[in-house]
């Protein structure tokens, strides 16, 4: 895919993606809007700017790999992949329906999806394994892994963090969607993670921080990834859960709840769309 940075175009794409994410979840009657909306700019930065990939050749051997460890934000990934051309956009309305391949959590049966996830804490280990395999085989591709910040409460992530540093996986970039809110409240109130940057730094990672809704900052962080040899990188992307919809922003309640018709209409209006 052509990957020129175009902030104006990306912003418009983000607006469009937010609409489609909400429509997908509404149509299904269930899903995870909060964590899907917070990941939009991150996914656009990856799929439209940074990652090397081919929508018409999902198994291209030197494609960059992307592991969506926060598998519940599947609407965001599916919308991104459909818009890239991995599968027809009209399939989006089958999300979560019986016999659809758009399973409720990220599913490898969907073209463009590397790996099925949904149980938090597994993705980073797998991403490390992929990056390690690339080193062994001297294959020239990068591996990206998107994590939730609530997800970082799972100890397995820290096992993987140690692993990546130990094996100098500088071909690995993790991104934390630091939206600060988990299913039952703020992350810092439930099991606090600050100082988060310090933690990753002390584990031997290069830590980059960005406003997760600012394309310029995300671009800088992604460009910086790999500039340090022998260390894996992590981008702590500061985001807002439910970004773009005033009644969802920062709310735990919208972690895993679908909007009803009125709520959808209001959300779309806020995003600048008419709801028909």
């Amino acid at each position, binding site marked *: 895919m052509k990957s020129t940075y175009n902030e104006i175009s990306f912003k418009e794409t983000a607006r469009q993606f937010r609409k489609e994410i909400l429509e997908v979840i509404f149509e299904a009657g269930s899903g995870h809007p909060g964590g899907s909306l917070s990941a939009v700019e991150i996914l656009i930065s990856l799929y439209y700017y940074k990652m090397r990939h081919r929508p018409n050749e999902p198994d291209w051997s030197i494609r960059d790999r992307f592991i969506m460890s926060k598998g519940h934000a599947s609407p965001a990934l599916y919308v991104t992949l459909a818009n890239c051309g991995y599968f027809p956009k009209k399939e989006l309305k089958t999300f979560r329906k019986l016999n659809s391949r758009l399973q409720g959590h990220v599913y490898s049966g969907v073209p463009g999806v590397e790996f099925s996830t949904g149980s938090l804490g597994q993705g980073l*280990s*797998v991403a490390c*394994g992929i990056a390690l395999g690339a080193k062994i085989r001297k294959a020239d591709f990068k591996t990206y892994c998107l994590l939730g910040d609530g997800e970082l409460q799972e100890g397995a992530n820290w096992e993987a963090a*140690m*692993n990546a540093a130990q094996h100098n996986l500088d071909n690995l970039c993790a991104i934390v969607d630091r939206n600060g809110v988990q299913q039952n409240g703020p992350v810092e109130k439930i099991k606090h993670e600050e100082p988060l940057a310090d933690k990753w730094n002390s584990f031997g990672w290069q830590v980059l921080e960005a406003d997760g809704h600012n394309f310029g900052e995300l671009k800088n962080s992604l460009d910086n990834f790999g500039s340090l040899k022998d260390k894996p990188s992590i981008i702590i992307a500061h985001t807002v859960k439910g970004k773009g919809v005033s009644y969802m922003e920062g709310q735990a309640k919208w972690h895993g709840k679908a909007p009803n018709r009125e709520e959808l209409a209001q959300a779309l209006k806020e995003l600048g769309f008419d709801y028909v």
Partner: protein
Amino acid sequence: MKSTRDAFGEALVELGRKNPKVVVVSGDLEDSTRAEYFKKEFPERFFNLGIAEHDMVGTAVGLSRDGLIPFACSFAAFLIGNAYGLIRIAVCYNNSNVKLIGAHSGLTVGEDGATAQCLEDFAGLNVLPNMLILSPADALEARKATFAMAQVCGPAYMRLGRTPCPMITEGDTPFEIGKANIMRDGRDLTIIATGIMVSEALNAAKALEKERISCRVLNMHTIKPVDKEAIIAAAKQTGAIVTAEEHQLNGGLGSIVAEAVCLNHPVPMEMVAVRDAFGESGDAEGLLKKYHLKDLDIIAAAKRVFLRK
């Protein structure tokens, strides 16, 4: 006498020589699991990922994505206990080509005691779709099973034991995944055993012969997919079954066999297994006796089932 873990360690090296795609990850137990033989010869293909079984399995999954064949080795208790969620989703649901090695299975782990004595691996893994479960009866079989595991595509698990055990198969004994071997034929009842219990079953059958009870002995080396045909044939042809395993009664080989028997050709059954108890420290042989996993226990079960025919 040779342990299945020794045979596995040697076979892994041979495999490594033949196939450059084989890699090994370990949870800091490579000396005990004998994965260290591979480490010595192929240090660039071996990774000790530390005391982190979840990460070890996850890394193995990642490695398997582009054609490498990873063997992930730890003690069965920790491998399954600590990585189960990942085995369920990253390995089985994603149908990953990962070879899990659960060493130190059963009571014969000995003095280390209950926490290391895995008695639940069959039950825990049998319920996971796509998982292949192998339980070799002796060192020769462990060697064949290692090669066989590497050849199939998809999730696979093999349990290994710690102590040297009798060699009861031969070089040309066939090893076909999913096909039980008839170690000895008989008419009056069938003993379906796995792992070290096959040897005990053969001893029991010899003794029972002297008392004019003729036993067929089946080596069920593949727990999943279990050889239903052989089980049903045994039920039809001999009319009574005793199962024997170094594993909990609940959900082990006995339960798996009972399911096939009950659904197809019900006959009286008895089961020799650990009766819903954790293990404990002790010498291997003493533990097998205390927990009733010896030929004498199989003989007693056989006599009971024979009377129920």
